[in-house]
């Protein structure tokens, strides 16, 4: 299903989700007494124990990777694959399940970076003795070169943090024509200094992104670098037939002694692409032959849930880690009906969130969202919902608000969703009809979904919009989704609600300027509640990522930093001899 690819690559994906606090492991929704045990293995569990070195790990996928070129890799789980196996970054996430995985450790760098000038200048030192796959040394200049590449109009799609944070980059179009940035200095081969346009307290996290991995200028192939990134990680590409098969073998020049996170257990990693989703599930459930040493890349199909949950021996092999993203129903505040605050607030009560859960695979794979910031960004119990934690709709409250908003008999409205969210839109249609709101559904192909809802003149009244935080703070969430100054006439993304509120924008600027991360964190949580009261969107779901592993797999867990995808740094096999070489 390449649809999911698109949906990922343009929306949720663009971000680096980060599980920060213990909220990840605790369950929400105490109001649902019917709740059964947790799906799959509990958060924080590692499936299969400690892997043994060797063997072939197979990854079964229904799609190809978007971009493996580190300057262009910003599709959520692909960043996991790239940075854990093929290229190292200045810092990286710990290889640990649950909340521990949200911590970062130095990777190529010797520490998490030294800020100066109040966080405007960041200096990193590289470890000695780092090598590429051909044995040549990894230099600070190569990291600078790759950051510069992310400015090139040919090499699009990657993280844009360099464009956003670096000083003096106006009009810069990349190093392909021989121009270089002055805001990155490399006084010697092991030192790199970034000058930023404003203080960025969490820049240590920024440099976990693949943009901050090394690419030597001698290996530059423009857009075709994508086909064979030059490895600085534990594996290198043996062959890559796009859309068919990728084979990774060990990079002999990678040294475990320099690497605090990557274990590189398997000798070889094979990615089979373009398979059918349901067939991947069946193969891994059966776990015969090489399939026992396989993991799935794409989500388990909803239809397979009934094959997995009732069977304990299969359920033991299911990971369902939180994606760390929030799914929202964006209300178009720029025109009637949702320019009316009361009508927007009525939607908070009218939407039946439990129907949303069912339509997305059931409570086993979803939690009901009660606020905008995902649990990973809020302490447990710290941020509250302005509308309570109800799971079903409150028709009476909704009707009261509708009456106050001057529409006691409801109104007609429109929603645009991508074809994959069809059932969810239909569930919305159903629950809104209970309070007299008539919803007209327009589905569009995933490939044009964001263009359609991003055209502000023709935008629908409602749209389903997901956002994953880029950082362990609200600064990578709320300003992207609710800052009115980011609205573009066409190609508008993030602030799909077209929510403009001077007070909220002012507060956002104030919080961004805070130097203390903890108080900024609290401030973002308070701002979340303020925005909720203005109701530009209805929080719907916090989804989980369901993934199955074969029964010869060890060391598997969903990593919170990459929307719950397996951590490829430490995954391996129980018995390498069982995998086909």
């Amino acid at each position, binding site marked *: 299903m*390449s*649809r999911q*690819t*698109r949906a990922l*690559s*343009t*929306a949720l994906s*663009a971000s680096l989700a980060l599980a920060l606090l213990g909220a990840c492991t605790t369950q929400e929704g105490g109001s649902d007494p019917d709740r059964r045990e947790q799906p799959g293995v509990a958060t924080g569990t590692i499936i299969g124990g400690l892997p043994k070195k060797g063997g072939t790990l197979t990854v079964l996928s*229904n*799609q*190809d990777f978007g971009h493996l070129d580190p300057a262009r890799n*910003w599709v959520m789980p692909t960043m996991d694959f790239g940075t854990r196996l093929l290229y190292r970054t200045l810092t990286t996430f710990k290889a640990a399940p649950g909340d521990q995985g949200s911590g970062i450790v130095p990777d190529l760098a010797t520490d998490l970076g030294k800020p100066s000038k109040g966080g405007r200048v960041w200096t990193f030192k590289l470890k000695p003795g780092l090598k590429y796959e051909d044995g040549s040394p990894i230099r600070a200049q190569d990291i600078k070169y790759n950051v510069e590449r992310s400015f090139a*109009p*040919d090499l*699009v*799609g*990657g993280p*844009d943090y360099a*464009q*956003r944070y670096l000083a003096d980059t106006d009009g810069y*179009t990349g190093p*392909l*024509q021989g121009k270089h940035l002055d805001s990155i200095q490399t006084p010697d081969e092991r030192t790199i200094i970034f000058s930023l346009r404003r203080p960025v307290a969490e820049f240590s996290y920024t440099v976990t992104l693949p943009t901050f991995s090394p690419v030597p200028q001698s290996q*530059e*192939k*423009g*857009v*075709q670098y*994508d*086909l064979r990134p030059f490895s600085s990680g534990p594996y290198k590409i043996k062959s890559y*037939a*796009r*859309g*068919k098969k990728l084979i990774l073998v060990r990079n002999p020049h990678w040294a475990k002694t320099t690497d605090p996170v990557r274990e590189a257990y398997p000798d070889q990693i094979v990615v*089979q*692409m*373009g*398979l*059918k989703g349901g*067939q991947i599930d*069946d*193969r891994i459930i059966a776990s015969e032959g090489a399939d026992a040493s396989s993991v799935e890349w794409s989500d388990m199909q909803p239809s397979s849930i009934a094959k997995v949950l009732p069977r304990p021996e299969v359920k033991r092999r299911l990971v369902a880690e939180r994606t760390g993203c929030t799914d929202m129903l964006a209300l178009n505040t720029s025109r009637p009906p949702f320019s009316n605050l009361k009508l927007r607030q009525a939607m908070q009560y009218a939407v039946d969130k439990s129907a949303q859960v069912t339509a997305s695979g059931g409570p086993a794979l979803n939690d009901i969202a009660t606020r905008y910031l995902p649990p990973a960004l809020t302490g447990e119990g710290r941020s509250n919902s302005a509308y309570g934690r109800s799971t079903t709709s409150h028709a009476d409250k909704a009707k009261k608000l509708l009456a106050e908003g001057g529409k006691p008999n409801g109104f007609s409205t429109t929603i645009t969703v991508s074809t994959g969210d069809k059932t969810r839109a239909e569930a919305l249609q159903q629950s809104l009809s209970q309070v007299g709101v008539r919803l007209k559904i327009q589905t569009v*192909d*995933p*490939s*044009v979904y*964001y*263009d*359609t809802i*991003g055209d502000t003149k023709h935008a629908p009244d409602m749209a389903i919009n997901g956002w994953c935080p880029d950082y362990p703070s609200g600064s990578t969430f709320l300003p*992207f989704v609710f800052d009115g100054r980011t609205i*573009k006439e066409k*190609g508008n*993304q*993030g602030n799909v609600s077209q929510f403009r509120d001077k007070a909220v924008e002012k507060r956002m600027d104030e919080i961004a300027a805070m130097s203390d991360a903890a108080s900024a964190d609290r401030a973002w949580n308070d701002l979340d509640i303020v925005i909720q009261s203005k109701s530009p969107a209805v929080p719907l779901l916090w989804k989980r990522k369901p993934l199955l592993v074969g029964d010869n797999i060890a060391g598997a867990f969903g990593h919170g930093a990459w929307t719950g995808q397996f951590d490829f740094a430490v995954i391996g096999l129980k018995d390498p001899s069982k995998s086909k070489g």
Partner: protein
Amino acid sequence: MIAYLVRRCLGVAGVLLAICAVTFIIFYLLPADPAAAACGKTCSPQRLAEVRHYMGLDQPLWRQFGDYLVGIFAGRDLGSGPHALHCGFPCLGYSYDNALPVWDLLMDRLPVSASLAFGAACMWLVLGLGAGVTAALKKGGLLDRTLMVTAVATASLPVYFTAVMLIYGLVRISGLLPYPTYTPLTSDPLGWATNLLLPWLALALLYAAMYARQSRSSMIEAMAQPYIRTARAKGMPARTVVVKHGLRSAMMPVLTLFGMDLGALLAGAVITESIFGIPGVGRLFYDALQRSDQPVVLGVTLLAAFFIVMANVLIDLLYAVIDPRVRT
């Protein structure tokens, strides 16, 4: 004959040009903006403009089309500076999605679709013609009725239904076959065949049913011709009559059908490839469409049209060789 060939070739070129133009216009009307899709989520308007320029999307339609046509023969450059990509004859542009030349992508996927098409074609020809000719010779008998009822029923089953049932029966229940994972013929001939057996069967059953019906009626028609009756009356052995005279003339309409079907299948069986997860041209097309990867979509369409047109030309040539009157 030469003049005839030249005329046909010009016709082919005209048809391909027309198809190319229609496809181009269709995709020009597409609401998706490939530049915005490539640029990503937080693309600034200025960067979007740069990307659009880089992809050549800021040019007017006629100009883009002209560049495309010229590019096919003369080649084109993508991008600028030292890392610009040159794409030589026959240049169908570069995939927006993965920066590979469309021609290379097509040639990479074509063996897969061809494996699928030729394997299935062998099966359906044997099954379909066998059943059709047998039924025709036993016209009205129980065997005829059984075969034709089976054929009409099989032809009414959509390929995606047959495919799922085959997977269920041969993979899930009995475990006789593996889940199809394409293996190239050159690396492992046995693996190639076992992995393709399921999709072959799924396609072949559908086509065999159609061919059984078609060949039965042409065979009956042929056997009713006066010269067959004459041959019979002259006491020629029944076998010789059927094979030498009946089959030969009955096969002409079947051949026409076969050329068209094979031509269409070579450029990808979209549904079959997608349901079995086979990385052929059809799958390439479907994925490209989902990502508004216009150059790839255009390339597949042209390839498909090329095969269909060529199949037509070959059939016509065959007729022309047999019957010189066609050439005039």
